[in-house]
């Protein structure tokens, strides 16, 4: 009975080695995926983006600053630009939304001639959470 040629043994060994290598690759891929997910979990990010929308026109909002207490927004300060030579009563309105609910506030102030920029504080009726999707819109206009 003639024995098998030696190359068949080599092929079988090679197949086992390839299988082991494949197994190691699969396991190491799963392990790296697990580590990656763990690292992502450790640096969980909230509030990485926001939108601020201001109005146009003769009187327009140039900035809004949110008043925050912890993770809650309690109000805002809006800066309005008006015509320097005008005077009268100006209304400023700010709306904050966190993507789930929103709060609005409005205030009216008198501004005389010579003033171009003025800042109005606005307090919301009740605090609102800043997260998850913060957005702000503000406008100002001349009342009379």
């Amino acid at each position, binding site marked *: 009975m003639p024995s098998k040629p030696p190359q068949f043994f080599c092929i079988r060994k090679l197949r086992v080695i390839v299988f082991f290598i494949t197994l190691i690759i699969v396991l190491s891929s799963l*392990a790296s995926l697990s580590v990656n997910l763990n690292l992502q979990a450790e640096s*969980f990010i909230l509030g990485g983006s926001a939108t601020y929308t201001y109005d146009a026109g003769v009187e327009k909002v140039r*900035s809004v600053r949110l008043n925050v207490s912890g993770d809650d927004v309690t109000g805002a300060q809006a800066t309005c630009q008006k015509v320097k030579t005008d005077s009268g009563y100006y209304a400023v309105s700010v709306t904050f939304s966190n993507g789930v609910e929103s709060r609005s506030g409005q205030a009216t102030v008198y501004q005389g001639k010579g003033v171009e920029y003025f800042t109005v504080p606005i307090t919301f009726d009740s605090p609102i959470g800043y997260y998850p999707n913060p957005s702000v819109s503000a406008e100002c206009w001349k009342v009379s």
Partner: protein
Amino acid sequence: MRRLLLGILFIVLVFSASVISVSISASIRRVAGGSADVAHNKIKILEVRDELSGINLVRIYVTVLVDVSGSYRVAVTVSNDQGSASGSWTGTLTGGQETTITINIPPPYLKEGATGFNHKVEVTPL
């Protein structure tokens, strides 16, 4: 013998996969449950202020508050009916400290139009 070996390897593979899946699901539950040992990086964009030269938007000031110190990229895209413009800043922010960032808008400048400026601000940890 070969089948036995393959069977053992298959069992090892299934066991390893199940251990890893349990580990992943535990991590997800830990994050979703707001576990105290998970550092949530809370970012707040507190203020956006426009600076114009005539009718051209030339500069934007953004005040940011982050929980975790490190390198960040702050990008702003402004748009109205005249078009859009964007700028960005990269640097270090200190956790728990408000930082006002100046972002210069490169020419051609965005002009004031019939609609107001809409700002999209994105803060990304690097």
